């Protein structure tokens, strides 16, 4: 574990040696291993490292044995194959998340416009984006609250919509559990649909690294920042946008863009058709409770079809 820890630290790019490697006779980072006293942070890191599964045959950092001759002939420092540093993971997360921002920023704008339009104050609209930090649930909150629906229906609807995050945190648990509490609180707060979708790919499909959680930090922070800024922008410009632009129609359009491509199986279709029908049938119900009814009905329909319709033979 000692070796792995040292590898992780040098991999972070914090303290690359000023001494050319060939001076140290092939022993690349001799000073650093002893120079840093193990602080609490590094002990946590070591604990974290010992928890993630690593293939024992392949150390995290393979330091090639170099000779002075090699260094002279190549002329350049032979970069060891190293683990990705915290900074590299963070920026990889930011980079991977960027394409999704083309959907997130318009949505944030529309929410900002809609929040104020539906009667929330500017401050409430803006803070909703950081308190709830979930697009669909914020839209529902604003619309239901504006319609004068009782608080428990508003709260219940938001809760049902956001229950899905349980799935995300459950999938992330094996990668994030070993982290200190404050990390888990921060990353839990940032765990949205989009950040999850991007960072779980890195956790599952790329080799584990001591700083892999920085990937989620990067994707989550980019998303958070974009969401807050676009909400504020929407609140500010919202007042100048005339009603005739029907900009509120961008909300169902955004959701169409999300839902249409993920309707793949019969159970997905059952969930969608049931939810859509119940939403229409339930319109006369008091307190806009059609949304809650349609959501629960749709989930139930999808689950039932999925449960009783599992094909015995793979259709492919």
């Amino acid at each position, binding site marked *: 574990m000692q070796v792995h820890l040292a590898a992780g630290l040098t991999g972070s790019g914090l303290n690359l040696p000023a001494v050319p490697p060939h001076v140290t006779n092939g022993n690349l980072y001799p000073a650093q291993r002893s120079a840093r006293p193990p602080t609490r942070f590094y002990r946590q890191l070591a604990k974290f490292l010992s928890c993630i599964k690593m293939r024992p045959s392949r150390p995290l950092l393979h330091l090639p044995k170099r000779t002075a001759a090699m260094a002279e002939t190549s002329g350049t420092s032979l970069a060891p194959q190293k683990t990705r540093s915290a900074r590299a993971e963070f920026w990889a997360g930011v980079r991977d998340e960027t394409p999704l921002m083309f959907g997130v920023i318009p949505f944030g704008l529309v929410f900002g416009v809609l929040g104020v339009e539906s009667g929330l104050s500017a401050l409430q609209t803006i803070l909703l984006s950081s308190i709830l930090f979930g697009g669909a649930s914020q839209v529902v909150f604003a619309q239901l609250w504006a319609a004068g629906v009782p*608080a428990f229906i508003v709260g219940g609807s938001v809760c049902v919509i*956001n229950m899905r995050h349980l799935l995300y945190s459950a999938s992330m648990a094996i990668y994030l559990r070993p982290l200190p509490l404050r990390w888990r*609180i921060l*990353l839990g707060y940032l765990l949205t649909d989009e950040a999850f979708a991007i960072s779980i790919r890195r956790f599952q499909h790329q080799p584990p690294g001591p700083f892999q959680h920085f990937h989620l930090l990067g994707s989550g922070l980019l998303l958070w920042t974009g969401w807050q800024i676009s909400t504020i922008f929407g609140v500010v410009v919202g007042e100048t946008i005339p009603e005739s632009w029907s900009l509120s129609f961008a909300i169902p359009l955004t*959701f169409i863009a*999300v839902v249409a491509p993920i309707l793949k199986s019969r159970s997905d279709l059952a969930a969608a058709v049931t939810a859509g029908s119940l939403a229409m049938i339930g319109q006369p119900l008091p307190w806009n409770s*059609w949304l809650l009814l349609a959501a629960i009905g749709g989930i139930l329909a*999808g*689950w039932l079809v999925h449960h009783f319709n599992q094909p015995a033979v793979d259709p492919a």
Partner: protein
Amino acid sequence: MIWLVMIAAGLFTFATRFIMLSNIISNRPPPWLADALGFVPIAVLTAIIVPAVLIDPASQTIALGDNPRLFAAILAIVTALVTRQVITTIGVGLAALWLLQWLM
């Protein structure tokens, strides 16, 4: 009052994101619950989409034949299936709505 509901809903939402990372619950959700939660986005979002498309905001009645929103939404669904891009779908849908409103 609104602040209270906002903060309560926010705390609940945070709890759903954090609870499995905490040491309070050590098990994954049972398979039946995981399956059910998988349908939440489809059910919730469709339930928001359908009334927003079919109900005329001015008269609050169901509109089918002379409903520019319905045609714009159908066009948006096709766009979403073909391009899989959120911004293109919003753009095509809004442009179609504006055009139809101007024509009808």
